[in-house]
């Protein structure tokens, strides 16, 4: 399972980093990116979906293939 932030859509609401700091980090301007290659440990799957569901810009994708 992986998460990805669409940097074109992200406007820095910072909800993902607040809800799932293990999976999302903010840059110097407050815009989000996934931590590392975005791999989600099984224990954090709920947090990945929570972050996605709270992004006002629909900028987060969760790939659970």
């Amino acid at each position, binding site marked *: 399972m992986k998460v990805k932030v669409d940097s074109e859509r992200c406007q820095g*609401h*910072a909800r993902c980093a607040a809800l799932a700091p293990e999976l999302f980090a*903010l840059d*110097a*301007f407050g815009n989000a990116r996934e931590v590392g290659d975005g791999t989600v440990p099984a224990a954090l799957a709920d947090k990945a979906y929570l972050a996605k569901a709270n992004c006002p810009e629909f900028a987060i994708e969760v790939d659970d293939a």
Partner: protein
Amino acid sequence: MSTRPPVDDWASDFDHLDPRWIEDPYPIWDALRAQCPIAHTQRYRGVYFPSRFADVRAVAYDTEHFSSRRIMVRDTPPPRIPAPPITSDPPRHGPEKKLLLPAFTPDAIKRHEPRVRDICRALIDRFADGGGCDAAADYAQEIPVRAIAVMLGVPEEDGALFRRWIHEMLELGITDPAAAMRGLTASQRYFAAEMEKRRTEPRDDLITHLATAEIDGKPVDPDRLIAMMRLLLVAGIDTTWSAIGACFWHLAQHPEDRRRLVAEPQLIPTAVEEFLRAYAPVTMARDVVKETTINGCPFKPGEMVLLSFPAANRDPAMFPDADRVVIDRKENRHAAFGLGIHRCIGSNLARMEIAVALQEWLPRIPDFRLDPAATVTWSEGTVRGPRRLPLLFG
């Protein structure tokens, strides 16, 4: 204000300064969303009002047809009060916003949290032993002016000046352009003097950061910088004041929510998001600069759009039980801080202030209710919040 004819059809003749809209807009918006999701009025030289989340979002994302050069809806063309980057369009908007963003990241804001906590405690000390207070005037109003003063690096007492200028520019200015000019000129002089001081004596504050700022390696026009500082006042004070006030207005009437937050303070950040959704204070506006169509509705150049994030946040197509305040709502994609490139730059500051205001108050004054002998009043215009909120303690 009383000279305006009363509204009898909200869909074709709405008036956002009508006393009924100011008092309780939600039933009006719910009805519009169901019957006429993009309302229009001939008042104020022509204004559209989308009430669905999807349409508000579409306008917010479309900077080609909808400009931010005018963000006030007025009877007569108001004096232009630039407050970049909120009043900027691409391509100018991006670099201006980038100048401010690093000072407003969650980590940067966290540095100011202890001071804001002290501010809240000192305010509560003033009234905690009495039987009640006006939570809008004595508490909510005082927190953001002081927090902005802390960030700018000016004395907290100057907050009183800031409040006067905002009142002149945003509230009196709706009907009195001379008042708007007074606030504009006074704030201009104040910030010019503060910038000058920091050119010779730099400090670790936001005014110094801006006074020495560059875009593309070139110094920024001082008038533009002063306008940015004005933005921090215009956008950072009565907005957060309104948001904090609305939390207390809700909790004064919902003892079950209040008790739960007293017992489970770790729920406060989640509850803050829900208060922001349900009582979002800020409605923005856009200037239609090119004809376009959204959701089947033509938008004509020269008219304005009221961009109601508060109405979007009550759209049942986006939020189940949209009209209920659910303080532990898990999925909350609310748009209280706007959508698209103009996302509120101060969102992390506002969230911190609101959470701290609750965290400091609730353990000290866990029981409070509206004073049945007094009246709650609400602001007029496009920032909605309680302006008088008399509470009784115990």
